[in-house]
């Protein structure tokens, strides 16, 4: 079938990895073939006329044809019929992709925020993507971060319930031929049934600011046992984490669910916001000319009311974590920041 998928250009699409995606590809093949035929008729006709009716002598006359009702009827009616087929077919495929209200065998709450995804399973397992490691390690100019892996079982119906904490984002998995916007203040759903095992990339396709192109995740489709194993490992890891010290817990929050590392570095480099290296106990200069020594109160205020004091030279881009962060989590983060000398 390889020559077929090449000719129909479906070989450029990622392997169809869900039950629904094969249907999209069939529609695509129909669109491509009917489109090619229309193109050949139109442009082929035009090219033939150009050569056949080239002006050869300066006084060459043309035919006087004002219209032709039959031809005009046919070339209006036939495209209309083809378009109605494409419409109806598209609708039926769309209906399978949407499946609003259908409950999944596995349900995951997905929260988008500039510029990360949080995946939360029913049993509180939480994955944050991308990670803070570079995707292309040997290229210093690459800005892409390595996507974190989200695991789902093959053959089951998976429902992702999407929302956003800040602006519009869009959850797109090319291999699933599916996409859905994550809208602040709303819930939308992204339902799919994977049939292929493997790793599939998630992109954000709604422009969302500076690091829009960096908002990736990896969905790993595995069989049922591996999925169960992965879940129990994650749960064990979570149990271990609660025995850790405050600075370590803070580090996990910083890199993980709160996603601070998306905008603040800990090694002194500048990302979107100021670095945290050497923050604690040192002087900060603000855009309005004032300054303070960074202490517990200042850090807490910056987390809860980020716009109160804007560090000189940075945009007021951070949104408030009010309601998303608990009191002792703030303490843990401060402990972590203290370690960044």
């Amino acid at each position, binding site marked *: 079938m390889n020559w077929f998928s090449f000719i129909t250009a479906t070989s*450029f*699409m*990622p392997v169809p990895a869900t039950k629904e995606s094969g*249907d*999209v590809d069939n*529609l695509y093949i129909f*669109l491509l073939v009917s*489109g090619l035929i229309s*193109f050949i008729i139109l442009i082929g006709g*035009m090219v033939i*006329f*150009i050569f056949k*009716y*080239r*002006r050869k002598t300066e006084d*060459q006359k*043309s*035919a*006087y*044809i004002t*219209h*032709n009702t039959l*031809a*005009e009827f046919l070339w*209006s009616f036939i*495209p*209309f019929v083809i*378009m109605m087929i*494409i*419409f109806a077919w*598209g*609708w039926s*495929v*769309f*209906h399978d*992709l949407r499946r609003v209200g259908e409950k999944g065998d596995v349900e995951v709450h997905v929260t988008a925020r*500039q510029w990360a995804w949080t995946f939360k399973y029913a049993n509180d397992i939480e994955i944050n993507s991308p990670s803070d490691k570079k995707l*292309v390690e040997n*290229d210093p*100019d*690459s*800005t*892409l971060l390595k996507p974190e892996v989200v695991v789902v079982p093959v053959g089951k119906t998976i429902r992702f319930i999407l929302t956003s904490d*800040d*602006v519009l984002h869009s959850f*797109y998995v*090319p*291999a699933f031929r599916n*996409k*859905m916007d994550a*809208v*602040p203040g709303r819930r939308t759903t992204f339902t799919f049934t994977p049939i292929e095992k493997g790793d599939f*990339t998630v992109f954000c*396709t*709604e*422009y*969302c600011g*500076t690091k*829009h*192109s960096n908002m990736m995740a990896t969905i790993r489709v595995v069989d049922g046992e591996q999925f169960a194993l992965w879940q129990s490992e994650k749960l064990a890891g979570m149990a271990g984490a609660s025995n850790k010290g405050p600075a370590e817990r803070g580090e996990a929050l910083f890199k993980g669910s709160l996603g601070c590392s998306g905008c603040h570095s800990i090694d002194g480099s500048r990302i979107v916001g100021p670095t945290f290296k050497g923050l604690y106990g040192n002087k900060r200069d603000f855009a309005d000319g004032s300054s303070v020594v960074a202490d517990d109160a200042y850090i807490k205020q910056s987390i809860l009311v980020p716009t109160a004091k804007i560090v000189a030279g940075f945009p007021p881009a951070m949104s408030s974590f009010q309601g998303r962060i608990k009191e002792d989590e703030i303490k843990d983060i401060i402990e972590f920041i203290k370690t960044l000398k």
Partner: protein
Amino acid sequence: MAHEQHNYLNHQKGIWSWLTTLDHKRIGIMYFIAIMSFFFLGGVFALLVRAELFTPGKTLFSADVYNRMMTYHGAIMVFMVIVPGIPAIFGNFVLPIMIGAKDVAFPRLNLMSWYMLMIGAAITGSTLFLENVDTGWTFYTPYSSIKTGMGVIPMVLGVFIIGFSSILTGLNFIVTTHKLRAPGMTMNRIPLMVWALYSTAILQVLATPVLAITLLLLIAEKTLGVGIFDPQLGGDPVLFQHFFWFYSHPAVYIMILPAMGVISELVATYSRKIIFGYTAIAYSSLAIAGVSFLVWGHHMFVSGQSEFAGVLFSFITMLVGVPTAIKLFNWIATMYKGSIRLDAPMLFAIGFMFLFTIGGLTGVYLASTGMDVHFHDTYFVVAHFHYVMVGGTLMALMGALIYWFPKVTGKIYSDLLGRISWVFIFSGFNVTFFPQFILGNMGMPRRYYDYLPTFTELNQMSTFGSWLIGTGFLVGLFGVFHALMKGKEAGNNPFGGKTLEWTIPSPPPHENFDKTPVLTGGPYEYR
């Protein structure tokens, strides 16, 4: 010619006489100069955007700088180049002449539209120096209203004023077409260019106010904190998209209908044949204008709107495809048994049909809900709209430029330079944008500063193509200066056109016609 002929160019002298002129022909030229300068700026941004995408990762600029360039490229090209382009430049110049009028109905309003475009452009442009905007030309909320700088305010204020320029031009054209036609020029005898401009004018007058209101609401939210679009203030973020596309979908027809008018003129003249299906072409323009108000939701299939809404919008969108296809068939049927000459303007017309067919067919893909879910907001869409808007409108603009150049200036534009320019633009265009269809298939989202290494080769091809396009337009520009300096004298009707502008001297006299013409038949009567 022994003595200097009296025409609109030497009727009055000095820069002040231009800046205060009420002559539609001079205003057309002023639009040409202004819009071509904007086009140059937008083109430089395009080349920079493509240069950045030559390799994955940082090639030249940081992500923030890239996002700004992408925004200015889109905003300048859409609001200051393609939307006003053909109507303001060529519409102003030829519309009154084509219907046998001395000027537009409201000459002062016409001059005022030009000034509004300039003021709007200056305000929008000032953000380049004050606070750059990085929202993309669509200004989607809540990013534009809460998550980015205050530069958005002057930016959309400028666009708001430009919108009024567009409304005034439209109003002027509608009244002109209804009231100032020469005796015998019934609605069924006006040239197809005029039909296209007339349909466009209706869209301009009815759709643009919606954009204006939307932008005002955005400003109100951003400055006063009124909760309209921002969910944190109780607003609805998707509402903005509804408003925005309620204007911007008809706007894509504001961009393309005038181009279709130009193509009708070119195909008839260079095939030396009566246009096939005059009524079908004329009324399909009106049909497109009407239906295009009801399809805005096809930009929002994945926005979370209901499945039913998606399906309904998909259905209506398919209906717009039909009159569009009819036009293509009519032009090709006009060439049948014609007497065809492949001068540069005809090459641009053929290029238009080639690119527009690809753009139109891929539009059907996107109109089909199930397919659009995969392609929405990927490079497939970028390729699609460049094929229709740029392949369509810019091809027509170049064709129109070379075709009417002799009428405007009295000098012939070098056909050779026109052809060279065509070769570069046409081939470069396909090299730039065809690979983007494949990138879309592979799943590369649009507005991306950085991309996966697998997308590299196709992006490089695309960047290379952008240099070819750039070269083509520079050749085209050189052709303008070359023709002004060295061009041959044109005579009244160098190409054998049948519409009224070819019956008067080139350049035309101040008031177009010495004697009001009287029409006894339709246009394009090549027998």
